[in-house]
Structure formats: structure tokens, C-alpha cells
């Protein structure tokens, strides 16, 4: 497992020599390159130019203190590691100036850990937001800033948007995350991998299964443990049920924004049915406590036939409700054309999940770097090219049915026998690796370092934070009243972004 099982893309053959970098062994799917901090920006630019997607940048501590950048490129995670050798300030060239996807990650690193890229120009403080501090840039006769949040209208999570408008068109939008920063990455330190799962499940509660899967897979890759195929199948089952709940939630909220209350109720009913199914299956409405490093803990209190019947019912109802939703012009007219995101913009911001797939990108961790049982079950990636809120809703509709297909396929295989569901983790060992999962909000990447069997460091690259940077650009021709439609079409969670 420690050797490179696949050849990195042809591009990488030239990359190490020209940068003075060397390829290090890493788990499959990861190409690790060690280089000098000053070569970091140049390497990132080469990756950018061949179409890599920015994932994250952070400080790692294994095998030595280093600045680490992760980039997704054609089925591999390219990892640039620039050792910082302890003493002295780290200096590296800023990526954010020419790659907007890197801006927030760089700024967070600078503000929290004092690692400032040279020639970086950051705006207002990102990580310690002040609800009252407005900074108006758009001036004119009628222009005024509206601070929307962190106390929202309705039951929503805390985040603030500063909207500058003359009353109709949105001249400038600034998203301000981190009102909910709880310091959870530091909370992992010193816990056993088993106990650390409780923390990762509570980073983004609505995507608890995806977070637990990505974390567990990182631990397993770091410690070279292979969960049993049956355990991997159960993980897929819980993860796809979570996706059903999240996508149904987004669609119900879209219906609510047009005051299509019957439609809202229909999708809420379906979502509640999924939540109850998960409660029966796991004892938790959010599937918590099931996924653990090495496998899965409890397996269902329901028979395969019962699950098939429940899914069949949901699928039938969903088919009818989708037809009605798509046939209601008062609904679709508000979504078509709203919040248009051209493909190049989405690529430049390295967006992931339904937001990227709604603009024609087939970005999906289950497809790019298949993990667990997705290697066997496969995935039809659902994309739409229009790039508007309607396309993002259509992606979710498509994915609901694809999730149901995967669920049924997984269930068919579960019939055959019950294998060992948990492989034991070796005690008191060291290791470090990335793990990933496609959360309902998009690709989630987790870096985990284990020392003496305890978690030493964790870094979470959440899809919500990465996609929110793009939200500022989602109002090219849209007016203030489109705000709720466009926000819900992103379907993100502040808790995951703020950590």
C-alpha cells in the first residue's frame, strides 16, 4: 500500500526535476512531492496550468513540520510538501493573487498560524468576524450595505453576508464565515482514533457520516488497515441515505422560498421518512456512532427486505413530486437563470459538489478517486451545463435517483453473508495520510496524523468553506430578492466551514 500503485500523470514526470522536488512514497491515490518553500508557488502554478483543482493548504507535522498543499488532478491527490525546518518564519509565494480558490485558505493560515505568504494582500480579517463592522466599497447615490446575519430570519445557521446594493441589483457581496468557529481541529489532539470520530461527526452535523467516513479512511490509509468489503458496503449505505436527506432538504427549502408550501411539505415528508429510516437503522437520526476507523459499528436493526421496501416507497413518491416540482412554472421560473456561474469561474474557484456539477464539471470524489465500495458499485456522475440555480437543483434531483440506485445495488450485495465488520487498528504506531469522501455538499478532504496510536494533528478541507468563496460571485445579474434561491441552491453548512 505504501508504494505508488499507479503512475502519476505524465505531467509529473517533468515536474520534480524542474523544481528540484523528489517523489516520496505515499498511500495509493496520493502523489507526494517534497520541495523547498520557495518552489511552492511555482509548483502550484504548474499544477494550475494543467487543470488541477486546489484543495487546501495547511501546516503538517509528520514526518517533519512542513507547509503542505493538496491539489486534485485526474484521479490523484497531488501533495506538495515544503519542510519548514522549525526556526524562522516560513516564506512562500502567495497563490491567492492568481488563484482565487487559495485565498481563504492562505488567509486562514496567516491569521491562525502566522504563516504569511510573501507579497500577499489580505483584506479584512477573515477568522474573527465582527458582526457590526461594515466595509462599504460601492459608493453612489443610492448604494448602501446590508448586513444580513449572523442572526438570520428563520431557522438557519449563523453566517453573515454583507450585501451592497442600490435596492435591486447586488453590486457587491461579501460572505463572512467563521462566526461559529469552535476550534474543533485542535480538539482531536491526543484522542484515540475511535474517540476522535465523535468530534469529526460534530464538525458538520448534517454530513456526520461523510465526515466520519473521510476521517476513518484517512486513519486506515495512515495505518495501512483495510476494512472488510461488507463494512465498506454499509458505509456506502449510510452515506447515500445522508445524501438523500441533505438533497431533499435543499429542494424543500427551494420550494419554501417561492411560497410553494405544498411542495415544501412534500419534500419535508420525504426527508423526514429518510431521517426516521436512519433512526431505525442506527439509533441516530443523523447516522452517528456507526462509522469507526476499521469498519462500522452497529449494523442495521432492519432486514434487507424492509430496507428495500422503504426505499421503494420513497422512490415512487419522489418520482411524482419531482414531476410536479418541475411542472410548476412559479417555481422553476425563479430558478432558471438565477445565480449563473460560468464553468471557467467555477474552475478558477476550485468549487466542488453540486455547485460544480451544475456548471458542467464532473467533479465527484466518488468518481475521481473512488473509495470503499464505490470502486465496485460505480457512479453515474450527474452534471448539468446551464450553471444556474435550476441546474444545481436538477443535479440534486438526478443524484437522489442515483443514490437510490446505489443503495439498492449495495443492498443486493448485503444479502450474501455477514463478514467481519471491524478490522482492528494496530496499537501505538505512527502514520499520516489523507482521506476523502464526497459529502452531500461536495468533496471533503481530511488530513490525519497518528503518533503512538493517538491523533496528533487533523486538518479538514470542508466543501462548504471552499464553495462559499464562489458565492460572492454568484450574483452577476441577479437582484436582492433572488438571494434566498441562490443561497439554498449552494446548499452549504456554516458549521462545516467554520469548524
Amino acid at each position, binding site marked *: 500500500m505504501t508504494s505508488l500503485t499507479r503512475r502519476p500523470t505524465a505531467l509529473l514526470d517533468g515536474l520534480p526535476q524542474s523544481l528540484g522536488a523528489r517523489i516520496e512514497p505515499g498511500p495509493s491515490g496520493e502523489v507526494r512531492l517534497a520541495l523547498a518553500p520557495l518552489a511552492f508557488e511555482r509548483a502550484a502554478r504548474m499544477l494550475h496550468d494543467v487543470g488541477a483543482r486546489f484543495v487546501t493548504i495547511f501546516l503538517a507535522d509528520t514526518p517533519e513540520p512542513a507547509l503542505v498543499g493538496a491539489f486534485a488532478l485526474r484521479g490523484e491527490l497531488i501533495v506538495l510538501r515544503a519542510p519548514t525546518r522549525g526556526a524562522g518564519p516560513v516564506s512562500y509565494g502567495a497563490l491567492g493573487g492568481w488563484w482565487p480558490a487559495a485565498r481563504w485558505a492562505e488567509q486562514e493560515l496567516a491569521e491562525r498560524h502566522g504563516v504569511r505568504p510573501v507579497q500577499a494582500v489580505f483584506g479584512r480579517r477573515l477568522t474573527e468576524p465582527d458582526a457590526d463592522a461594515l466595509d462599504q466599497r460601492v459608493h453612489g447615490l443610492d448604494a448602501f450595505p446590508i448586513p444580513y446575519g449572523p442572526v438570520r430570519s428563520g431557522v438557519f*445557521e449563523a453566517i453573515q453576508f454583507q450585501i451592497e446594493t442600490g435596492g435591486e441589483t447586488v453590486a457587491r457581496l461579501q460572505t463572512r464565515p467563521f462566526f461559529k468557529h469552535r476550534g474543533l481541529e485542535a480538539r482531536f489532539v491526543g484522542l484515540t482514533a475511535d474517540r476522535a470520530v465523535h468530534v469529526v461527526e460534530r464538525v458538520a452535523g448534517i454530513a456526520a457520516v461523510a465526515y466520519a467516513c473521510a476521517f476513518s479512511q484517512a486513519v486506515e490509509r495512515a495505518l495501512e488497515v483495510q476494512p472488510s468489503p461488507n463494512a465498506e458496503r454499509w458505509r456506502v449505505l449510510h452515506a447515500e441515505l445522508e445524501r438523500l436527506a441533505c438533497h431533499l432538504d435543499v429542494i424543500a427549502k427551494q420550494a419554501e422560498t417561492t411560497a410553494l408550501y405544498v411542495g415544501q411539505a412534500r419534500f419535508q415528508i420525504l426527508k423526514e421518512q429518510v431521517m426516521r429510516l436512519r433512526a431505525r437503522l442506527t439509533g441516530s437520526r443523523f447516522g452517528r456512532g456507526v462509522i469507526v476507523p476499521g469498519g462500522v459499528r452497529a449494523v442495521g436493526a432492519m432486514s434487507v427486505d424492509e430496507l428495500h421496501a422503504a426505499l421503494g416507497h420513497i422512490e415512487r413518491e419522489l418520482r411524482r413530486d419531482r414531476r410536479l416540482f418541475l411542472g410548476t412554472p412559479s417555481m422553476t421560473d425563479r430558478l432558471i437563470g438565477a445565480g449563473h456561474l460560468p464553468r471557467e469561474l467555477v474552475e478558477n474557484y476550485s468549487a466542488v459538489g453540486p455547485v460544480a456539477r451544475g456548471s458542467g464539471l464532473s467533479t465527484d470524489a466518488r468518481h475521481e478517486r473512488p473509495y470503499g465500495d464505490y470502486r465496485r458499485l460505480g457512479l453515474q456522475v450527474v452534471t448539468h451545463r446551464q450553471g444556474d440555480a435550476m441546474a444545481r437543483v436538477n443535479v440534486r434531483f438526478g443524484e437522489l435517483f442515483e443514490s437510490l440506485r446505489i443503495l439498492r445495488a449495495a443492498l443486493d450485495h448485503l444479502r450474501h453473508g455477514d463478514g467481519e465488520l471491524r478490522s482492528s487498528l494496530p496499537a501505538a504506531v505512527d502514520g499520516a495520510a489523507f482521506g476523502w469522501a464526497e459529502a452531500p455538499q461536495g468533496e471533503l478532504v481530511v488530513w490525519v496524523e497518528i503518533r503512538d496510536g493517538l491523533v496528533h494533528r487533523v486538518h479538514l478541507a470542508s466543501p462548504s468553506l471552499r464553495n462559499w468563496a464562489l458565492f460572492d460571485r454568484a450574483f452577476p445579474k441577479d437582484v436582492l430578492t433572488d438571494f434566498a434561491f441562490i443561497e439554498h441552491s449552494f446548499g452549504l453548512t456554516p458549521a462545516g466551514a467554520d469548524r
Partner: protein
Amino acid sequence: MLGWIARGLRQGRITTRYPRSEERPPRGYRGCVEVLDASGAPRALAELCPTAAITVDSHGQLALDRGRCILCGECVRAAPDRFRFESRYQTAARTRSALVVADDGLADEPDRDTLAKLAPALRRSIHVRHIDCGSDGSEEWEIQALWNPYYDIQRLGFFLTAAPRHADVLLVTGGVTTAMRGPLERTWQVMPKPKALVAVGTDACSGGLASDRRLVAGGVDQVLPVDVYVPGSPPAPIAIMHGLLLAVGLLAPGELVA
């Protein structure tokens, strides 16, 4: 539109009868942890809990603080003779100390002024406002669910309002992060009296797993007086409904149905 109406009618009634009759969770639902045997406990039992919800005093008397419990099940798995998951929704209490359980049953709750006592006319028209102070996002889902057709809390006279100045009850989620402290205090301040504050979720009761006190205050009651605590990670919609009914006095402590 007719299609939607036909769909709605064909569904029939799915709304819970709670609180007229009890709503039972599915078998195996992890609603709260019950203490089976609280005496003669070894000190090491306290180490099982990642949020220090379990304490053992010098006499070996064990106590479990549900306001800290995140329902992770570490104790249930390690000491099944002492702890058990209980499939129960009604876990809310009007005092923080009433969330601490030992084998001597429920701690007594002093009779406090509820919203209904102070303003009986409010009984059937309660306006609810929510503020997130650092939840993990799941509590918001469960609060939103109260207005879905399964729970339909509007039938009991609870309405969601966007304006704190119209609100009678404030639902707070999360352990109160630094950036949310000011907005929380101001929201509470502008609400007219009489008013009630309900802390929803273990994070709001105690801060939960977030343990860095420079970042998270460690529970809403560190900032403002709390009328009802609803523990759970997250609490189910019926559990939150129970908390709301306690807050307005439509249910008394210990009463399961109205």
C-alpha cells in the same frame, strides 16, 4: 397547483398526536443514557466519557450529567451493567441540575414562573425565534422539522417569527462562540417580557465537545439565564417540542402528555 393539492390530500393525516398522546421513538433509538447502578462505582468509569458527563464521588457514587452527554455510547459499550441507552424523547428539564441523573430517579425541580403563568393569554399564540451560536448544524434541522407535516407545531399555537421584537421564546443552539456572544445578548435584550429562553442541544447546555473556553463559552447559561434545557446531540423534534411545552407551561415537569 391542483396536482399539488391532490398529492397533499391523498397523503392523509401523518401528524403526531403528541402531546395528546405519547409519541414512541423507534426501537433502539438513542434518546438518552440511563444509569442502572450508581453505587460502588470505580473512579475509572469517569474516564470513559469524552465530555466529562460522568462523575464518581469519593463514596463511589456515580452521576451522569445529561447536559454534557453527547450520546456517543462509550460508557454503554464499556460498562453495560451500569449504563444503558434509553429509547425516549422527553429529556428536557427546567433546571440544569435536573439533567444530572443518578439511580435515585429524577432530581426535583423547583416550581418556577413559566411563560403561561406570567401571561396566560399567550398560551395559544407563542412566537418563536431561533439563534445559532455555534451548533454543528443538526439542531437547526430538527428545529425546522417542527414545522413539517409530521410534527406541525403550529397546531399547538407556536409560530416562527423573524423579528426578535415579536418573539416570546428564544431557541438557542450551540455553546456560544466568541463572535456570537454579542448578537445573542442583543437578540435577547430586544425581546419583550415575559420571555423564555430554551437551550437546544447538548452544545447549548454545556458546550459539548468544544472545550476551548477562549472560543466557546461552554453553554448558553454562561451568558444568559436559561428557562429550559433540551439535551441531546441533537435532540429529536419531539424532544424540542417537549422543551417548548415546558417553557410555556403547557406541560409540567414529569408530565408526559397534556
